[in-house]
């Protein structure tokens, strides 16, 4: 089966990026010791190199998002993500696995999961 792992950063510490308004999370990252910062990078690398994983891309902060709807043929745009800022998706990856247990095990290794964020594991619908 294929699973999509959706990464929600919430307040997890992260390097400051243009547009990110979560100063607390950025400060928390700054105050992490170097070896912990390195551990986070290493974990992401390990997760991405796990057999079966198709790494996704990292998304710019949700503050930079634009959300649109089409009503009566007119495109309406609003500033910001569809979900709340803290619930917005920060990144994703695909994982080909035997079952949910394997996907949960991989998801638990994504650093955001232990740093205050969360990973949503969603099965991908298979084409017949």
């Amino acid at each position, binding site marked *: *089966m294929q*699973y999509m792992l959706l990464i929600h950063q919430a307040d997890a510490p992260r390097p400051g990026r243009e547009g990110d308004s979560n100063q607390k999370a950025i400060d928390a990252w700054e105050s992490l010791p170097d070896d912990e910062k390195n551990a986070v990078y290493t974990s992401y690398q390990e997760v991405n190199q796990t057999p079966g994983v198709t790494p996704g891309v990292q998304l710019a902060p949700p503050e930079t998002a634009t959300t649109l709807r089409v009503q009566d043929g007119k495109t309406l745009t609003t500033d910001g993500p569809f979900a709340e800022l803290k619930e917005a998706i920060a990144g994703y990856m695909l994982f080909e*696995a*035997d*079952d*949910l*247990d394997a*996907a*949960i*095990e991989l998801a638990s290794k994504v650093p955001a999961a232990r740093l205050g964020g969360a990973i949503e*594991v969603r*099965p991908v619908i298979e084409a017949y």
Partner: protein
Amino acid sequence: MIVEQAFREHWGRVLAAQIGFLGDFDLAEETAQEAFAVAAERWPRDGIPGNPAAWLIATARNRAIDRIRREQTLAAKTRLLEAPGATEDNMDETAFPDERLELIFTCCHPALALEAQVALTLRTLGGLTTEEIARAFLVPEGTMAKRLVRARHKIKAAGIPFRVPADHLLPDRLPAVLAVVYLIFNEGYGGRADLSAEAILLGRAMTELMPDEPEVQALLALMLLHDARREARLKDGTLVLLSDQDPSLWDAEQIGEGRTTLDRAIALGGGGPYALQAAIASLHADEARDWPQIAALYGELSRLTGSPVIELSRAVATAEAGDVEGALDSVEALDLERYHYLHATRAELLRRLGRPDDAVAAYERALELVQANSERRLLEQRLAELR
């Protein structure tokens, strides 16, 4: 009647084998039911087969194969057509491995909501009808039916495996299974005896399937010891406290079995939360209770779980061991204002310390919070005695 008994004994086993074979809960359940229907028709006429479980599994399997042959819609299922058709007369137990353990780990998977885990376990392993489960948990049948459909759908769509978790996952997954079984038992202990019996059956099955896990043995011991006092626990709908129970109403044989099971847990190195609770329940079944020892075990359990409710029980044992003042201090330090047992315990301790007015106030607070009628009546009795 014969088939009803076979259903009680073999339903979980037959369904588990079908799910393992088909990988599909719905088809497995339908065809397992058909197998029992065939048995109901044939057994009274032809006699019970030498190995009823194997007969039922083979019959269910043949039904499923027939049905898939007829439908032949889903390409994914065609591999089953190559499976040799089992014959119903020529089979032995070893032909079909027992897959109930796989089934219980699937039903109690943490990716399912706890209430769904409980319902699914009762439905699949216990063979309770949707209506029976709905009645036991006081929800409308339609709600329970939806809950079960949703859970089965998630198992399939999310790829929840039909498998006993790998060793490194067991320390997380086994307690989840035991918690579901114990929750079912406690639902029954509140008055619905059939659920307690169901939990004990599940507990027995678990000890057969995982004979080397101390906490599995310990949970069965705990349930047997508690359940042995069922008859003495209620009198005319009023809860009877352990100290006021008539020991002649206790089931001595079952207490014996509970203790033997506890010994097995301890021999396997058991010192987990269920083993401690079972050891406490065992001490409670003695005529003369060893309160200092009970208090010590509660202390250990409290350390293990960090639960203030356990700390409350420890305080009660401390009082029984003679230190009522110390017990009151412990109780008053607990952050359990919304918990009626806290106030009922405090009331009793105050009464013993010769402070009836404070005791009355504490009983009144307990009565504001209590839910179960049998407990309410006991509190009212106590309050009346003080006035």
